[in-house]
């Protein structure tokens, strides 16, 4: 599940708000600061008054979507009873939210405070207590009340009449008509069948192989009552329609307030989800610079990766770095977390621009027009992974004039090593020259010399220290250490290094840790040291 999918509003109103939000871009710094301040303020309040937020969530989770009903009001159409219930429920929820807000010591952003709908609540839920229910109460229309009372009285008379008749059947035949007022007499009981046929109270309805079925016939009085009841029912339906029509007309005067309240609750829901994440991540408000400046990240983490690491009992190492150059290079061993580091940088910046407190203890940056992340991409149909990479790079270059945070992960890894390296160096050089005054590029690679060749800052994953790779012979014989060992011993921090820093033998160490045959590892070490006739030292760019 992506982080965006984890932002899960409790209500459809919150989901509507979520679907409409957009990131803040350069020029909107002040708006974003205000937005993030709101989240920060609410997340602090959440820690102090968790009960308040829990009460609000209990209301939000029950919200119904009132927009269809509001559209009907705008179109001046009458609402059905379920639609009116939805509006009654909205008014009730608004009352509860306003009351929780008023009783709390939290400062609520005005756009999240719904306007009072007390008159709507009183109109639609007269004299009710507890959970809201809506029905066309007698109190809405004295005429409806009178018709209902009359209809019920007539129904009672009808039942009395039919009961009297059923009693007569029972007296004569010894049996009372059952469900559906039917009585079935076995054909072999000829006398009873003939008697039933002669009874004015019964009408023959069908004959089967074994039985003759009779149904209780309505008496003249019962028929008269049935006609009366039918007439009254029609009138009742008409009057109920009238009630719905005048309630709809009353509600029409409130349509703007109803809509405003619905959006306010949606905004509240969405804002609470952002505050909830900030609490969970112990996140801080970032510093946003108006002018282009360094990107500083302190104690940053990727929530998904951290959960995965902690889920297997590992200890997550947060990321801290200061990017103060248009292009910076990251190197490190396989399994060293280069991709995760790039993703963390992109995630923190993206989340901040989308109005979330990022998962870090500190972030200082200037807003970007876009964040571009090119991890290792599987080949698109008909394209190799390298060709897909090239196509993606072309897309990136169409935005060269905008200010971007560009995160490139081992570009050129899928092709000839020397040409891949050359291409990567050329891409970075191009980006530095054409976009260096506005964009920030962070590029991961296995080519150790790329940073010094371009004369750009070089960040290196601290990785495995040489002692870590000291394995017992028995370990190697048994297939090496397991992945967990690697997780435990890998130092994922990024450390800034200079051009003279020796190239760590990370790849060989990882292979050794994972138990590749010792003979192969030793031979590879000889090649690296230049003892063999192999020209594998391609860690300098051509």
């Amino acid at each position: 599940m992506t982080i965006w999918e984890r932002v899960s509003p409790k209500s459809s109103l919150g989901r509507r708000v979520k679907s409409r939000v957009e990131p803040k871009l350069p020029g909107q710094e002040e708006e974003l600061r205000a937005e993030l301040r709101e989240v920060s303020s609410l997340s602090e309040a959440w820690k102090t008054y968790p009960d308040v937020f829990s009460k609000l969530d209990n209301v939000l989770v029950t919200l119904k979507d009132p927009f269809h009903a509001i559209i009907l009001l705008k179109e001046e159409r009458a609402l059905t009873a379920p639609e009116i219930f939805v509006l009654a429920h909205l008014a009730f929820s608004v009352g509860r939210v306003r009351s929780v807000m008023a009783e709390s010591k939290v400062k609520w952003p005005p756009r999240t405070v719904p306007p009072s709908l007390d008159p709507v609540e009183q109109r639609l839920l007269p004299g009710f207590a507890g959970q809201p229910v809506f029905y066309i109460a007698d109190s809405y229309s004295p005429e409806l009340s009178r018709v209902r009372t009359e209809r019920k009285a007539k129904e009672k008379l009808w039942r009395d009449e039919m009961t009297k008749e059923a009693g007569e059947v029972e007296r004569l035949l010894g049996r009372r008509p059952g469900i559906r007022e039917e009585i079935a007499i076995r054909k072999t009981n000829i006398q009873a069948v003939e008697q039933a046929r002669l009874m004015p109270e019964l009408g023959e309805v069908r004959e089967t192989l074994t039985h003759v079925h009779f149904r209780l016939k309505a008496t003249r009085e019962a028929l008269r009552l049935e006609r009366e009841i039918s007439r009254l029912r029609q009138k009742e339906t008409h009057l109920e329609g009238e009630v719905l029509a005048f309630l709809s007309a009353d509600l029409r005067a409130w349509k703007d307030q109803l809509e405003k309240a619905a959006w306010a609750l949606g905004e509240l829901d969405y804002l609470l989800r952002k505050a909830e994440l900030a609490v969970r991540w112990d996140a801080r408000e970032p510093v946003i610079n108006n002018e282009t400046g360094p990107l500083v990240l302190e104690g940053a983490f990727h929530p998904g990766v951290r959960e995965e690491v902690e889920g297997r009992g590992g200890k997550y190492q947060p990321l801290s770095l200061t990017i103060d150059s248009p292009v910076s290079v990251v190197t490190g061993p396989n399994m060293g977390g280069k991709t995760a580091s790039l993703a963390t940088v992109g995630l923190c910046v993206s989340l901040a621009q989308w109005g979330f407190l990022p998962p870090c203890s500190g972030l200082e940056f200037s807003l970007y027009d876009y964040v571009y992340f090119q991890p290792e991409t599987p080949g698109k149909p008909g394209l190799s992974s390298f060709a897909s990479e090239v196509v993606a790079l072309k897309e990136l270059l169409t935005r060269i004039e905008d200010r971007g945070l560009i995160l490139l992960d081992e570009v050129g890894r899928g092709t000839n090593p020397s040409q891949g390296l050359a291409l990567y160096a050329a891409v970075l050089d191009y980006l530095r020259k054409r976009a260096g005054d506005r964009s920030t590029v962070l590029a991961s690679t296995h080519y150790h010399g790329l940073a010094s060749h371009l004369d750009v800052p070089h960040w290196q994953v601290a990785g495995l220290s040489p002692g870590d790779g000291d394995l017992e012979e028995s370990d190697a014989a048994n297939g090496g250490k397991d992945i967990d060992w690697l997780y435990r011993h890998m130092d994922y921090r990024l450390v800034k290094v200079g051009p003279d820093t020796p190239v760590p033998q990370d790849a060989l160490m990882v292979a050794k840790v994972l138990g590749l045959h010792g003979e192969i590892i030793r031979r590879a070490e000889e090649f690296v040291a230049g003892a063999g006739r192999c020209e594998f030292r391609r860690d300098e760019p051509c």
Partner: protein
Amino acid sequence: MKYPDLSDLVLGSGAGSVAIVGTAKNVGKTVTMNYLSAALAGRGLVVGLVSSGRDGEVTDAFTGEPKPSIVPPEGAWIATAEGVLGESAGFLEIADVSEKAGVLGRLVIGRMRESEPVELVGPQSAKELARVVERLHDFGAQVVLVDGALDRVAAASPGVTDAVVLSTGASAHSDLALVAKSTAFVVELWSLKTPGDPDVLALARRAIESGRVSFLDEIPLAGSSRHDGSSLAPDNTPRYRVRQTAFDTVLGCEEKVLSQAGEAAYVVVPGAVSEKFLAEAEGMEFRDSFAVVAKDPTALFVRSEPPLPVYVAHEIRLLAITVNPVSAGGYSCEPREMVDAVSLEVYRSTGKRIPVLDVVSGESNFGEVYGVAVG
């Protein structure tokens, strides 16, 4: 001796939700629903009513004949689609309207202000249905009755209801013996048991929750050659392991799934189990012991007795069978004859004495099986 009434059986079972499932159209399911809801309400209980899919129409969808309506008692909670309620729904106190809308609109939950005929239209899926049953309980329904059918069998799933009443009748077959046989077959199917080995049951339930067709492989033990083995393993040693496949269904890929069986002792199927799957499983030349574990008896779509051992992860609790001796086509038989014939055949096939009742005539058979030497 006075035998208990259907409502006594429901109350005595302690079930909070009961599915009424018909074996065919016009077998008196609606009459049973009405009878039971009125009887429970008459004893002071608040009932809830919901349908799996659509039923309770004014006319039968197949025959066009007038059908009895569901008539919930006053004070009952019902769940139905807004599209069949009418605009005013004046008889209903509306207490909830769902977010999701089906073909007939959103699902409305409300309390009957007076007893009126209604059409019940509810969700088809077991998951949604279970949620509605829970909502009806939340609103105060003490016993929720779920209208179902063999082609809308989600109602009977143990994940939805606690117990089931099966309705059968003359409309199922024109021959009383066939009515009894077909009913007994359903009872037999719904009597499928969970695996006797609690470890197998626990693993099977976990495999079903994963949503993937899985195999349970026996973990080889020294000195034990059979999976059922009163093995030499210490009690706490796991004897089976779950091997998950990439399949979430066996439908349409029966052979592919079974080709991965290897030496498995059980195949656990999270969804529907077809006759074809069982035939393929039986037809493959496995070792002498191979069994299927289905989610529950409603997941089995078969017309004859399974050809190999079949277990379920969750059993169905069948409370009673109701019969309607009158068919829509005009055929009818004596209520007494029908309750006895069904009771006898169910006993013959399953060895179970399930109460059989005709709620219209009041005839019932609680196991005093005629013509059978019992014991």
